[in-house]
């Protein structure tokens, strides 16, 4: 699967560095699950740690705080990809530790 790392990098670069309705700093904070004020911080943390617990009220609270639907869309996407990226990187590091770096 030689192209997978390239495709993943392109995805992460697009959501963090490309044009968006949420600011680049908000998208990065969501990706890192760090440094966002409530209620957004709580929503992002739920997406990262147990997304099945996200409720209608969590999304409504983010909207009431002044975010547009497009901004919520982008921030949730960044939160999900950020957490999956941390898992992936941790696992690859474990694989390298077990087999030696290729």
């Amino acid at each position, binding site marked *: *699967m030689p*192209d*997978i790392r390239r*495709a*993943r990098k*392109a*995805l992460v670069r*697009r*959501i963090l560095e*490309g044009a*968006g309705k949420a600011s680049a700093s908000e998208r990065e904070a969501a990706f890192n699950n760090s440094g966002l004020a409530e209620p957004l911080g709580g*929503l992002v943390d*739920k*997406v*990262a740690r*147990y*997304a*099945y617990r*996200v409720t*209608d009220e969590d*999304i409504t609270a983010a909207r009431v705080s002044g975010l547009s*639907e*497009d901004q*919520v*869309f*982008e921030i*949730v*996407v960044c*939160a*999900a*990809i950020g*957490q*999956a*990226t*941390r*898992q*992936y990187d*941790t*696992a*690859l590091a*474990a*694989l390298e*530790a*077990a*087999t030696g770096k*290729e």
Partner: protein
Amino acid sequence: MRLAILDSGHGFGTKALFALIRSVSRQPVLDVVKLVKYRADFYGGPMQGVTQEAMRGPSTWSVGDRELMAAFVAKTNQCEFCTKAHVAVAQRAYGDGKAVSALLSDLDIGAIEEPLRATLLMLGKLTREQAVDADDMRAVLAAGASRQQIEDALAVCFSFNVIGRLADAFGFFVPGPEAFEAGAKYLLARGYR
């Protein structure tokens, strides 16, 4: 869906495509399709590139094995939509009556080869605990999976740890089995592009 834009914020051409899908499949358009088609330059386009490579790119894991991994990651994340969707694809991909649902509940009961079983266990731990260590990887290697197979499985795991989170956060509607069967047919024929 919790964001109205994901339900109905698409452009005219995409809405026409959805009408065509409804007409041909006689099923509702799955929310996962609505998500990837909304502002596809931001998420759907680049994510489909990743998922296509992970699920249909070159690998010594079969398509059925990778769909089983997807279903297992989804079940571990308690994502009903993705579990049902990928159980349907795995079942169809294996095509030999393997009881995929039962297998997901207990990896010890099914006729499953050791490298795949050990890989699934590692993906489950990674998904549940957010981390694995070198000993976990050594266990998978000792069970007979190659380093490349583990990397390939981690790519599947990445994709479905993204998609499952989005399905639950955005509140995907979970339709009946006929809609998932139609989706499974499409994913086996056309892939994730």
